[in-house]
């Protein structure tokens, strides 16, 4: 019942979104104001919505993928005692996420922004009896808050510069804005995006966020929430385009994240952790794309990524479900036989993300690479390609180790393994189809396929003052260059897929246990010790400082001074007290001396 309501509401929103899509397509953006949220003098902050091409696109992903994940969850969570709570949180999340993309001003975006962070917190900590999960949830929330602070400050600068937070006001005044100020705003907004989209240096929460139930990882930490940062930058493309410096920063952060986390992904053995690092890496690619000015490509990758990453997570969830909660791939193997549906959809997902020709990832990644080559040059392109290769490597490793070879789990687990019920597999199949065909939404123009660059045209739409909502990137590359770039990366991907099969698929070339790792492998397996670094850089000092301030600064220092005043008064009192020693002779002499001193005032 709960599941039906939960999933049904999503279905309804999906249908409504489709209607919006039609309306937007037919008659342009819809804007409506619900009520004044706050108004301070001229600054009016409204609870208002703007549904234009960009937001409706995001809404499609959110409600569409969200609906599938809801359906899937009915099966996945069916025997959890917090079943109703789960759907409550999940729907709250969808609400927040829609708020984020539908808002017509930055404040609304911020509402959604924090709202999804909150839901993320709630859902990561869903199994709250486990303290570690709670800690992971907290970590996610707090790292997000770091980003939120940046976003908030960015908003303050926007208010100062443009006198409004509404998109239409802000973007209408872009021409007259001070470029330096715009750079500051962009950087601060990007800090927000880094937090939400788990970019270096604020990425460590995302792998930990895998503590949540797998549908949550699929919906929040792969398909939707983490792409909010991409949405933000895309939404503010007008601002970012004015600031090459900021763009540069975005690109560098994106690229570094993409490569760095892909490397970490190579040596992870938790099925969800691999996917998590993969997500971070893909997000890095999106930011790289944004930094190159290819907003559409980024959105395109957001879309296809939503399909195949949701697919991967959900099928990983299916595996975990089938294995009775096991997540370590070293204890899996040969699952192909036991869970055929899951195997096939996982395979599709893996190939899609690896850039297997004509699958969705192939198109979206290719666009990013093309843009990178066009705007950044060969070195940038090469680096991006490295990340693509790494992606293929760890994904294939995951696929082969999990589904090929012999089963390595316990007998009990072997007994337990079963294919998931259809309420779970059907959404998987739908997503698999989407992962396959998703690329057709925005095929490159040089392929001259029908509907070429459809998405880019859609998103360009009609924004304020006739400027496009999301401008199309201009790629001045010859078709042959593009063809060759594409062929090169595709070849590499195929090579990897095949090669890895021989490394992991055929031979039982298992990842060694944690203790036996040495050298660089060990460093990678331990995620470059970034968590430990942060721990000793921020967490420990803060905690130590907290104790220090409490014990020494507060109790002994500040309060010590206060008490010291009291003690001083007492001490002085103790001295004065001795004057009154009961002996009248002292009193008399005191009087006389006092009088004599008083008489001295005559002589002043």
């Amino acid at each position, binding site marked *: 019942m709960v599941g039906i309501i939960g999933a049904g509401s999503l279905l309804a929103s999906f249908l409504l979104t489709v209607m919006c899509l039609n309306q937007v397509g037919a008659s342009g953006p819809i804007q409506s104001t619900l*009520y*004044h*949220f*706050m*108004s*301070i*003098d001229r600054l009016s902050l409204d609870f208002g919505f703007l549904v234009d091409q960009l937001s409706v696109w995001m809404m499609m992903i959110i409600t569409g993928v969200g609906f599938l994940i809801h359906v899937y969850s009915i099966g996945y969570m069916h025997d959890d005692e917090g079943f109703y709570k789960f759907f409550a949180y999940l729907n709250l999340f969808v609400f927040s996420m829609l708020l984020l993309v539908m808002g017509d001003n930055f*404040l609304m975006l*911020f*509402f959604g*922004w*924090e*709202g999804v962070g*909150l839901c993320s*917190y709630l859902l990561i*900590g869903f199994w*709250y*009896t*486990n*303290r570690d999960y*709670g*800690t992971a*949830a*907290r970590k996610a*929330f*707090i790292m997000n*808050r*770091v980003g*939120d*602070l940046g976003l*908030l*400050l960015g908003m*303050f600068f926007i*208010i*100062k510069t443009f006198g409004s937070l509404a998109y239409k006001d802000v973007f209408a005044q872009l021409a007259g804005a001070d470029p330096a100020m715009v750079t500051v705003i962009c950087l601060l907004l990007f800090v927000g995006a880094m937090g939400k989209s788990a970019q270096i240096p604020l990425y460590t929460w995302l792998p930990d966020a895998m503590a949540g139930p797998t549908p949550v990882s699929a919906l929040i930490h792969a398909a939707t929430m983490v792409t909010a940062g991409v949405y933000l930058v895309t939404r503010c493309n007008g601002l970012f385009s004015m600031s090459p410096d900021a763009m540069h920063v975005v690109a560098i952060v994106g690229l570094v994240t993409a490569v760095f986390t892909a490397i970490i992904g190579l040596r992870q053995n938790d099925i969800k952790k691999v996917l998590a690092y993969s997500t971070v890496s893909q997000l890095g690619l999106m930011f790289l794309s944004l930094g190159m000015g290819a907003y559409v490509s980024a959105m395109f990758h957001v879309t296809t990524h939503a399909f195949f990453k949701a697919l991967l997570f959900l099928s990983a969830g299916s595996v975990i479900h089938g294995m009775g909660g096991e997540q370590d791939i070293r204890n899996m193997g040969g699952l192909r036989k036991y869970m055929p549906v899951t195997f096939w959809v996982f395979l599709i997902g893996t190939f899609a993300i690896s850039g297997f020709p004509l699958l969705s990832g192939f198109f979206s990644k290719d666009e990013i690479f093309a843009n990178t080559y066009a705007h950044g040059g060969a070195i940038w392109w090469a680096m991006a390609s490295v990340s693509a290769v790494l992606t293929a490597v760890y994904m294939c490793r995951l696929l082969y180790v999990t589904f090929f070879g012999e089963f390595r789990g316990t007998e009990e687990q072997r007994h337990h393994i079963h294919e998931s019920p259809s309420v779970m597999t059907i959404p998987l199949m739908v997503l698999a189809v989407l992962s396959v065909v998703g690329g057709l939404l925005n095929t490159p123009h040089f392929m001259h396929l029908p509907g070429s660059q459809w998405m880019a045209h859609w998103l360009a739409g009609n924004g304020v003052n006739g400027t496009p909502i999301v401008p199309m990137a201009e790629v001045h590359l010859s078709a042959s260059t593009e063809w060759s770039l594409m062929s090169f990366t595709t070849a590499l991907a195929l090579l990897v897929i095949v090669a890895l099969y021989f490394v992991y698929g055929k031979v039982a070339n298992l990842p060694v246990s944690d203790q036996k790792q040495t050298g660089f492998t060990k460093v990678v397996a331990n995620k470059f010790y970034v968590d430990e670094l942060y721990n000793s850089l921020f967490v420990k000092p*803060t*905690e130590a*400082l*907290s*104790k220090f*301030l*409490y014990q020494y*600064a*507060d109790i002994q220092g*500040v*309060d010590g*001074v*206060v008490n010291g005043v*009291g003690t001083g008064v007492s001490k002085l009192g103790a001295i004065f007290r001795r004057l009154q020693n009961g002996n009248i002779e002292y009193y008399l002499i005191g009087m006389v001396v006092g009088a004599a001193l008083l008489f001295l005032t005559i002589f002043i």
Partner: protein
Amino acid sequence: MSFLLIIVPLIASALLLLARPSGVRQIALAVGVVNFAISIFAAYSALYDGTVNHETNIAWIEQAGIRFSVGMDGIGILMILLTNLLTPLIILSSQSQRIDNEPRYYGLVLMMVAALNGVFLSTDGMLFYIFYELALIPIYFICAIWGGENRIRVTLKFFIYTFVGSLFMLVSLLYLYLKTPGTHSFAWTDLVNVQLSTVEAIWVMLGFFFAFAVKMPVFPFHTWQPDTYVTSPTGGTMLLSGIMLKMGVYGAIRWMIPMTPEAWHTLTPYFMALAVTGIVYASIIAVKQSDFKRLIAYSSIAHVGLIAAGVMAWNKMGLQGSLIQMLNHGINVVGLFFVVDLIERRLGTRTLRQMGGIAKVAPRFAVLFMIIMLGAVAVPLTNGFPGEFLLLNGVWQYNNWLGAIAGLTIIFGAVYMLRAYGMAMFGETNAETAEFTDLDGRETAVLGIVAALVLVLGFFPNIILQLTDGTVNRILGSVQF
């Protein structure tokens, strides 16, 4: 009507203290509700263009220029609403447990309410001061009679500290009074017109500041506060943190800066620095607190530091933010202290480490607590957010870097509140917490009202902002630097 707000609880208090009738609880609650109704009606029938409504102005001590003049403008109405909204909640929350000598307890609570209403309604400087001090007596008795360990030492420190603070305000007020032209007068309108030299203004402002800084409290005058909050009975803590500390903020808005604008430029940087230091300082301390109540106490210091910084910034954003945040902080902190009280009553401990897993056995409690906690963390669409947004913006307008540092509060706020919530509610139950019973009706009512307010005011902050808009404009306009 203003007069009623003071006199009704005062008479009821005298009745309870001296006559000790039966049905004390009902009387106290009824008085609280009646007062709330009066204040709602007053708010309803008031004008919000910055003028003073419902004035009563009668001669009192002519020889000293003191008049019994009360009235409410927008800010006053907000404070009155805060006070009289929280009063029934506080009374109701106290009623879910047995208290020794109830007539005395509720009598003192009502006396406190009368004094607080007086503070917020006074338009005469000396009357303000008198109520300001009068409020101290009942709360001191409440905390010292029904307090926990060390209550005598702690409350004595509290009393003397705050008393010393307000004495300096008295000196400042006197100084201003003697500067009023002609027959001296304590009327706000007369005092505010006094022209001071910068040096004089600095001293006068320091006098005010010391009083209000101790009351709020602002770092480094805060050390009485955690101990007092911890040791006080929950009703007392609620009164202290929910309403009484607002007296300091209110005083700064209404009295300190309008009286001494000449010193604002000179002193505000220091005050700001203190307030912002306090935010970070208290937040960091709160991070590792093991005593839940003390943690909230420190969080309160951090929050109030932000409110104070918003006031000092003296711009529209900051002031509006501080006003709305006063209301919302009051609501949240009352909720939080009630939560602590509920836990302590059931488990007999406030130590976070000894809790855990309560969410499992008391889901209703967990949800309400979560909502209130989110309000305290200032998640958007809870009541904590609008205030914090405006405050941070106000401070940021004053100085970008200070604004950014103050902004750390949203990070640290999340850190310590989530930690507390996690330690208390999450994890496996232990022997004690397994026995934790979920809320009964009265407790649900209190927490439910608080949680509802958290959400309603989170969605519709403009209701509150409109109350004070006109008055803030007028005050900002009337104070020339």
